[in-house]
């Protein structure tokens, strides 16, 4: 997690229908991802790059339980999501997919395009553009481990294989 990525900053209440529009839930993940956030920022899906960071205000991912919402972000290259608060199922789904979701009270201080380096274990967001360091809630060790294993299912498999 020491690579830096570009920040994509959005406001409050970015919901699962925006992230994974229902009309595309039926098609391939690629197609769905291509329409991620289309009603809010059509540029996002086209321009986001591997390793970028998704930043939002309150209630990121409120709405449906569709795991495709964090999956679309992940498929587009987003590696970390930061928000002031999360919709519960989205939060869990992101971690279950092995994508760190971090609560950060100061996402207002991040501008779109800033370069961020996020350390999920330490709970630190370095803004390389502004030079600021922001605190975020660190993930508890069991979740760090799950994320490092690549998500819930790979994690459980590893545990089972390990005889636990």
């Amino acid at each position, binding site marked *: 997690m020491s690579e830096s990525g570009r920040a994509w900053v959005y*406001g409050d209440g970015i919901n699962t229908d*925006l992230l994974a529009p229902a009309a595309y839930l039926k098609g391939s993940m690629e197609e769905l991802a291509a329409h991620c956030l289309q009603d*809010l920022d059509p540029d996002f899906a086209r321009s986001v790059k591997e390793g970028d960071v998704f930043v939002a205000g309150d209630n990121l991912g409120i709405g449906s339980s569709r*795991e495709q919402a964090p999956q679309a972000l992940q498929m587009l290259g987003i590696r970390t999501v930061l928000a002031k*608060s999360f919709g519960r199922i989205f939060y869990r*789904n992101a971690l279950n997919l092995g994508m760190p979701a971090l609560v950060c009270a100061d996402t*207002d201080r991040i501008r779109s395009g800033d370069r961020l380096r996020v350390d999920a274990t330490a709970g630190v967001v370095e803004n390389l553009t502004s030079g600021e360091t922001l605190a975020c809630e660190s993930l508890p060790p*069991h979740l760090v481990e799950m994320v490092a294993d690549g998500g819930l*299912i790979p994690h459980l498999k590893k545990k089972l294989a390990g005889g636990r």
Partner: protein
Amino acid sequence: MAGKTLYDKLWDAHEVRRNDDGTSILYIDRHLLHEVTSAQAFEGLELAERKPWRIDANLAVSDHNVPTTDRRGGIRDPISRLQVDTLDANCDKHHIVQFKMNDRRQGIVHVIGPEQGATLPGMTVVCGDSHTSTHGAFACLAHGIGTSEVEHVLATQCLLQKKSKNMRIVVNGRLGKGVSPKDLILGIIGRIGTAGGTGYAIEYAGDAITALSMEGRMTVCNMSVEAGARAGIIAVDDKTIDYVKGRPFAPTGEMWDRAVAAWRGLVSDADAVFDHEVVFDAESIVPHVTWGTSPEMVIGVDARIPDPREEEDPFRREGMERALAYMGLEAGTPMSDVKVDKIFIGSCTNGRLEDLRAAADIVRGRRIADNIKLAMVVPGSGVVKQQAEEEGIHEAFIEAGFEWREPGCSMCLGMNDDRLEPGERCASTSNRNFEGRQGHLSRTHLVGPAMAAACAVAGHFVDVREW
């Protein structure tokens, strides 16, 4: 020691093990499946060469993709068909009970669970669908899960969870004439906000809740997730037990008597302590309409669309401005001046018999307005549809100019052919008014069934209390 809340009791009864990190392994009694969030889970199971752990805990149905028009020709959209066929194949393979598309019992997963008695008091109920909170009306601990968790539950019948805090929402008094359970929950969300329930399991209590039918209680619990809560629950009383009695999946004979005796204890202890409590006065609740792109952006139908300039918080102000622009509305406009294009009556929030009755009572002997391009009623299940037809409710709708459709999710989220065109405005009895929810650039206003019906007749929002 203080007594236990209903949520505490449900939790304790299902906690298999508490881990050092504060999470718990929770046993799951009932797992409901639909076609959108289950395919990858079955695939994962297969890759790991596992089988579902307890077949009879599962009940499956296709609801999101099914057409609501003539079904005899099957599903035309190839991708919708693939999703439905995949669920069929997975259920056949693992011998999971499923109501297929042309089964009379098919319907929206959250309608059929209770209808069939598959949802029973005291259960833990999960489904890869956020509106699983609906089942909390039966004193169940019920919540939505993601696809990875669907796989987890299939494989182990358990779930890793962290316990929520306890919140109680007490609604005293009595709802006024023409005020529906939908208005009550919209009013609650309007006040506590879409994050008001975050981190909590909400128990609804008070005279106004007790007075609700089971259908009404389901409407309230359904939208708990829109308030950010993990689950909404309501204590067991005679209505709960009367509703469950005699349903196909409900226990019978001696098992029934034993079950009822146990279910009677599914109430919060008198001395239970809640982490947070909010009190409402039912008389203050009016018919509600959402004006924006989040369920908390809601006002009384007799009010004017709020002005962002009066909002002090800059973030909220910006959110309001964005919502008004998306919805094509101007601040200060009386809600009753807003005209609509389409009407949708249905969904897991308001697609039950009582909802259809309330709407039919309004349209009976009237016609939909000329500016309404489409008004549709989509019953929540085949059983609801049949009951409604036995009562002649469908005729009231058809004579008024409504389309009377086959059961499914339909325009609640527009995964099948039922959706809004860009810019179209809909009075909808569903639960989400997010941008694009009912189709690309769709504009959704959430209302109760009687309000939607009155809106169809008037062509614009109207106060149904005056009808």
